[in-house]
């Protein structure tokens, strides 16, 4: 078997607290990122993603502390994104225990940020976000501010540029699909997968296990990210692995 398709749950955090996360198990404190991360570690998630949606200057310290506490008890890869605007931001997260940092709006304004981080800390730790909306058939544009602000940047060109600058992988989120549970934007995912050599994570819009499978079968993604279907216990990580495995894709059998 070859490298496994990764199933990645994503937790939204603000000021060091989880604001959108697991509620399928009894947690002492549902806002505690460490408890949430441990729940997914135990469930056999292949990686974990924290997205800091507050991304305020004051929130950085709490975010770092949260990453530090999580890394002490979770022995799986951890990606942290939100508000990474400089090499220093990235370094601080990596030193706190993140394995990768996701770079989003700052790399829209200045794509070279990806190169700066990759040169100093290695490509393997740079996840470059491609947050896009479909603006015409076969055409996608990069949006920032949670999908509200158009940038005029073509999504495919931006994706290629981020890969050339040394991103280790791309996190492709359809802002049209995000929160809709209607499935990934498979055309967008496929177009980007076909134009870069690095792995692509499909994100935005998952409502069913079939959506995860399509992300790989039709979208060609190397990894599938989802939030609410896991948080609300609609499906388990293990069911996601099984669905992908049944469709013929290599998946992991976590050792518990």
């Amino acid at each position, binding site marked *: 078997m070859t*490298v496994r398709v990764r199933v990645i749950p994503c937790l939204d955090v603000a000021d060091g607290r989880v604001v959108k996360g697991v509620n399928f198990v009894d947690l002492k404190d549902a806002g505690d990122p460490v408890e949430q991360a441990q729940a997914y570690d135990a469930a056999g998630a292949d990686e974990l993603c924290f997205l800091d949606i507050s991304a305020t200057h004051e929130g950085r310290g709490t975010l770092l502390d949260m990453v530090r506490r999580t890394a002490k008890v979770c022995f799986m890869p951890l990606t942290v994104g939100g508000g990474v605007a400089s090499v220093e931001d990235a370094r601080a997260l990596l030193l706190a225990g993140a*394995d990768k940092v996701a770079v989003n709006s700052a790399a829209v304004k200045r794509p070279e940020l990806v190169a700066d981080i990759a040169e100093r800390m290695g490509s393997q730790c740079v996840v470059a976000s491609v947050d896009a909306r479909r603006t015409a058939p076969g055409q996608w544009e990069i949006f920032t501010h949670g999908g509200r602000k158009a940038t005029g940047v073509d999504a495919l060109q931006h994706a290629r540029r981020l890969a050339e600058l040394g991103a280790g992988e791309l996190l492709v989120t359809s802002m049209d699909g995000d929160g809709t549970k209607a499935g990934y934007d498979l055309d967008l995912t496929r177009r980007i997968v076909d134009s870069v050599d690095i792995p692509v994570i499909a994100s935005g819009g998952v409502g069913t296990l079939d959506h995860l499978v399509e992300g790989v079968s039709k979208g060609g993604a190397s990894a599938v990210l989802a939030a609410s279907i896991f948080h609300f216990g609609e499906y388990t990580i293990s069911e996601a692995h099984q669905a992908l495995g049944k469709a013929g894709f290599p998946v992991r059998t*976590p050792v518990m």
Partner: protein
Amino acid sequence: MASGQKVALIDYGAGNLHSVENALRAVGADVVVTADTAVVASASRIVLPGVGSFKACIDGLTAIEGMAETLETRVFRDAVPFLGICVGMQLMAEYGLEHGTFEGLGWVSGSVKPLTASEDVKVPHMGWNTVEPVGAGSLIEPGEAYFLHSYAFESAQTPDSVRAVTDHGGPVVAAIQEGTALGVQFHPEKSQKYGLDLLSRFLEWKP
């Protein structure tokens, strides 16, 4: 649980130190994060982590006066168990061919070369993949571990020092061993139970 083993975790500015430190502590090791050759000379286990480029890592290691020599003495004269992780493993090779050709520690015959991307093979090789032991008698057990790399070790002699392989568009070296020096391309500190179990065995290892 092998508590009490004094592990020197080499701090040479090559990142992910704390992940490795956390994992070693979780399996009961007494970890000292250090750049001091005297500490390395008295430790009963040595771990060399590493992320980033081959050149940055070897430059960082050789910038510590006497460190490369101390490591070599401890491993090849005193037979102290050593574990190199990811680029820490790659540094055991003679050469690294990442953005130029750079000398490594030269403990194993071979060099570190780029992986080649194709339609079905994405680079970096990122994610969980099979660890398939080669031969018997090493610490490596079959299982699945987390890989994250764009360059891989290629052996230059037979019989070689390869102790495990994985598959990414063809066989890719997952572990090498020379004497008491074990190197793993994957990240045991990020491989949940499989990885923690390997670290436990490393603490118990009496090669």
